[in-house]
């Protein structure tokens, strides 16, 4: 039997039935046996009284007969005559009359006078017998005479004095026993053991039949064992003291055993039937119970596989199961709902309901078939960050939803699909056959998108960048297409165009940039000479001494190819690697300053940093730590920032610059004159130096306008308390003009191109030797 519910229920039911049956069986057995035993006892008691009554009446009969005999005058007369022949005939006659089997006449001394039967068989002197019988006057006794059992009575013959005794008796034969048996319903035996005599009502007597031995030892084979066949009761009959005679009543137990067995058999049959019934009903019950459960198990497995169809088949179940079924149903529905929700959330953007990026990739992969043609348009909302910052994220979200709606409208019309693939980026994919159609459609889309939006009662105009990729011409895999469309939209963003059609090879360039970035990172980490610093000297025009240098980074890749600093710094800025790069630069330059200082070369070095560096919270602490490390005076370090970098995060940037200034570091404004720095802003910047852009200097000696700008800028710088540096000085004329214009420092190829530290030292020696 297993541990399952069905077998448990069945076991329980069958066990209960079995227990009940066994108990009732045992109790029936016990009570019936007891009842039967009592019945037998009762029968024996009845039999006893019956036999007593029987013998008593027999005795009465005997007594009556004997009395009649002994009182008969003729008899008395005959006895008185002492004539043997007469007496004998009288005895015979009277024995016939009263139907007595035995009739003896004894004289007073016990001698046999005469008998109704052959007298020779009797002992001559019957005095002992007579004496004992006289003691039981007028009561019958059982005696064995002449090998026969008699019930006898001894009566005196009186004339009127006793002149003789008459012994009258009935023979106790098996017929008597049989008659008693018919009255009592029991086997009746008369046993005179000492006289070696027995007679019994038993019909089929075995050889050498001894009633007592037979009846007390006789067994009968029944169901389980051999049982005694008779219940015996031995009763002493009135008899001679020296010759006891017993009556043996033997109740036949066979029928009682049979009755019990019959009953037991019936009970067992009933029990087996009940048990069968119990097994069947309990298994039906268990089946009924477990069929529901096993169905639920199947349904639960189905749920586990994600199939939430709920179909419960079966007859009417118990209310508990019904509850369970309905709970299962609810659970299935709830899980299904939740799963759909989760699945939707996993595949969709919660704000707009569009597919998300990964779902879009999956969808694309499915839709990209051989005969299909698609146009992928990535759309980037320009300046959404500003809207979020200024009008709050709710307005930003509102804008996103509004934009999404227009995109949906557009793409639905064309039978396409769409996704939100970034914070402010959407992608729409629609089937499109011709290139002309594409352009037309995209232009139409942008036009629609650029119409003003009304969000939270605000009228907002948005501008967009769009990148376009064609399937299958420009890519066949979903992720390629996705990457290329993003490259296209990035290109649109960087190129300030609103539209950019992906050009073949852009992807590879992008890939190349990624590789380069990886190598740059490796170069910073390894610091194995791929990256190195060059220093371009700055001439102090007034003193005609070289007292400053601008440190410039150079990168020669492992394969020997040079990478333009604009390219890799731009790359570092875009990827955030600029912070690490600047840290490396700062460390290298300050170490160099310290080195030079030891060589008694005193140069102030300028380091170019980006807006990201200034914004980086660790920059300040890192700089201070490095200065301390190399024991370098902060005043020999100049931080150069372009105008553009200063404008971004203005307030924060100014604060950071002020902090830097606080530790004694000098601040220089690079590329002054080509950016958007207003004079108003200029006066607020915490700078020490203005660095005129080289575009004014390169052709200074040829352009009158440049001369005006430079002269006024120098004057302005001086007026505002800044020193002024001119870079891009390539001719002696330019230098002399700058000298004349009282510019503080000059830098350019006329003096020297950027040099490695060692070359610079040589150059300085050479320079000092010449000048």
């Amino acid at each position, binding site marked *: 039997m297993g541990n399952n519910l069905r077998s448990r229920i069945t076991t329980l039911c069958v066990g209960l039935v079995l227990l009940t049956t066994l108990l009732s069986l045992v109790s029936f057995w016990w009570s019936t046996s007891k009842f039967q035993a009592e019945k037998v006892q009762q029968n024996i008691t009845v039999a006893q009284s019956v036999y007593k009554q029987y013998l008593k009446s027999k*005795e*009465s009969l005997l*007594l*009556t007969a004997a*009395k009649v005999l002994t*009182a008969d*005058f003729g008899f*008395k*007369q005959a006895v*008185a*005559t002492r004539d043997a022949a007469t007496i004998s005939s009288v005895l015979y006659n009277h024995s016939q009359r009263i139907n007595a089997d035995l009739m003896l006449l004894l004289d007073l001394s016990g001698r046999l006078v005469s008998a109704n039967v052959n007298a020779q068989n009797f002992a001559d002197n019957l005095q002992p017998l007579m004496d004992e019988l006289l003691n039981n*006057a*007028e009561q019958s006794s059982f005696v064995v005479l002449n090998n026969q059992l008699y019930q006898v009575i001894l009566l*005196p013959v*009186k*004339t*009127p*004095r*006793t*002149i003789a005794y008459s012994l009258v008796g009935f023979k106790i034969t098996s017929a008597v026993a049989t008659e008693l048996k018919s009255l009592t319903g029991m086997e009746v035996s008369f046993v005179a053991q000492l006289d070696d005599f027995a007679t019994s009502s038993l019909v089929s007597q075995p050889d050498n039949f001894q009633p007592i031995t037979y009846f007390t030892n006789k067994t009968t084979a029944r169901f389980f064992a051999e049982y005694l066949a008779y219940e015996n009761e031995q009763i002493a009959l009135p008899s001679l003291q020296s010759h006891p005679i017993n009556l043996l009543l033997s109740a036949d137990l066979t029928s009682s055993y049979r009755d019990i067995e019959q009953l037991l058999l019936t009970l067992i049959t009933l029990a087996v039937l009940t048990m069968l019934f119990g097994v069947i009903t309990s298994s039906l019950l268990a089946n009924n119970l477990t069929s529901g459960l096993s169905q639920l198990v199947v349904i639960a497995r189905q749920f586990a596989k994600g199939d939430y169809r709920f179909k419960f088949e079966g007859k009417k179940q118990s209310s508990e199961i019904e509850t369970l079924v309905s709970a299962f149903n609810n659970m299935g529905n709830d899980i299904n709902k939740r799963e759909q929700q989760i699945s939707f959330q996993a595949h969709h953007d919660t704000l707009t309901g569009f597919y998300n990026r990964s779902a879009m990739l999956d969808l694309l992969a499915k839709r990209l078939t051989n005969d299909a043609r698609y146009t992928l348009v990535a759309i980037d909302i320009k300046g959404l960050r500003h809207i979020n910052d200024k009008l709050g994220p709710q307005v930003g979200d509102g804008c996103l939803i509004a934009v999404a709606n227009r995109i949906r409208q557009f793409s639905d019309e064309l039978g396409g699909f769409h996704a939100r693939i970034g914070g402010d980026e959407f992608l729409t994919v629609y089937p499109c056959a011709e290139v002309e159609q594409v352009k037309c459609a995209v232009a139409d889309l942008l036009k629609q998108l650029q119409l003003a939006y009304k969000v939270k009662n605000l009228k907002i105009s948005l501008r967009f960048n769009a990148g376009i990729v064609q399937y299958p011409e420009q890519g066949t895999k979903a992720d390629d297409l996705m990457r290329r469309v993003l490259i296209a939209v990035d290109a649109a963003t960087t190129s300030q165009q609103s539209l950019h059609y992906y050009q073949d090879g852009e992807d590879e360039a992008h890939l190349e940039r990624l590789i380069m970035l990886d190598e740059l990172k490796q170069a910073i980490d390894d610091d194995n000479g791929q990256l190195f610093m060059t220093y371009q000297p700055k001439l102090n025009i007034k003193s005609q001494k070289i007292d400053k240098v601008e440190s410039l980074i150079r990168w020669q890749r492992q394969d020997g190819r040079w990478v333009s600093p604009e390219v890799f710094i731009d790359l570092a800025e875009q990827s955030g690697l600029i912070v690490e790069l600047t840290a490396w630069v700062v460390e290298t330059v300050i170490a160099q300053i310290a080195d030079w200082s030891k060589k008694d070369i005193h140069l102030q070095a300028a380091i170019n940093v980006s807006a990201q560096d200034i914004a980086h919270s660790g920059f300040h602490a890192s700089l201070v730590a490095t200065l301390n490390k190399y024991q370098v005076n902060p005043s020999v370090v100049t931080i150069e920032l372009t105008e553009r970098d200063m404008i971004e995060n203005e307030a924060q940037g100014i604060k950071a610059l002020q902090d830097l200034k606080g530790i004694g570091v000098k601040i220089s404004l690079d590329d002054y004159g080509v950016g958007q720095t207003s004079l108003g802003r200029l006066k607020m910047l915490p700078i020490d130096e203005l660095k005129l852009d080289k575009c004014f200097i390169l052709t200074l000696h040829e352009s009158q306008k440049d001369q005006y700008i430079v002269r006024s800028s120098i004057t302005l710088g001086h007026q505002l308390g800044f020193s002024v540096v001119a870079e891009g000085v390539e001719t002696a004329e330019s230098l002399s003009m700058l000298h004349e214009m009282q510019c503080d420092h000059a830098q350019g190829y006329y003096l020297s191109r950027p040099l490695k530290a060692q070359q610079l030292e040589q150059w300085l020696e050479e320079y000092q030797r010449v000048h």
Partner: protein
Amino acid sequence: MLERASQLIAKRRFLLIVGALFSVSAFGNSINLVIKDQHGQVLPNAVVEIKHLPSSKVQSNLPTAVMDQVDKQFSPQLLIVRQGQYVNFPNSDDIRHHVYSFSKAKPFQLKLYSGQPEEPIKFDNQGVVVLGCNIHDSMVGYIYVANSDQVYTSDEQGRIELQTDTFPVQASVWHSLQTAPLDNKKLFDIESTNPLSITINTSTPAPRNTFGSKFREGNGQ
């Protein structure tokens, strides 16, 4: 019961007087006898007879003795007569009796009768005659037929006073309850005038008329 006992005593006294008459008139020497049973108890109504050899002749002028039947009892219960004497059996009860005897001395029967029977019966053989009534089993009576003229009966104290002039003289003693057969008479010699004590073995008489009780029992009464 009391009434019956006093009647019995009265009858015995009458017998004693009869015996005394016989003895006093004939002889001079008196001898005292005491009759006892085997247990030493004195026995009344024992009969002692003096033997005379040769036996005296039967007298012919003997008076007719009477054995009455009163209240379903013989009266007297013991009657002593001389050989050849007649006994009348009047019936004083208002019921009939059937008096009989199977004794060798005188078997007879007087079939159912009342009042006076036709004629008295002559007892011409000596011996003991046991009387019974066929229809009243409880009735028993004795007639002692003596051939001697000297017959005595013991009184309540078992005493007998004999009169004799010759010694030794042979005597016999008899009692109705003796264990010896009823016809037997124990002989003894009287050799002097010294008082004698004579012992007779007796048996207790069986209670009479107990059949009825058994019948009643037998009949379930």
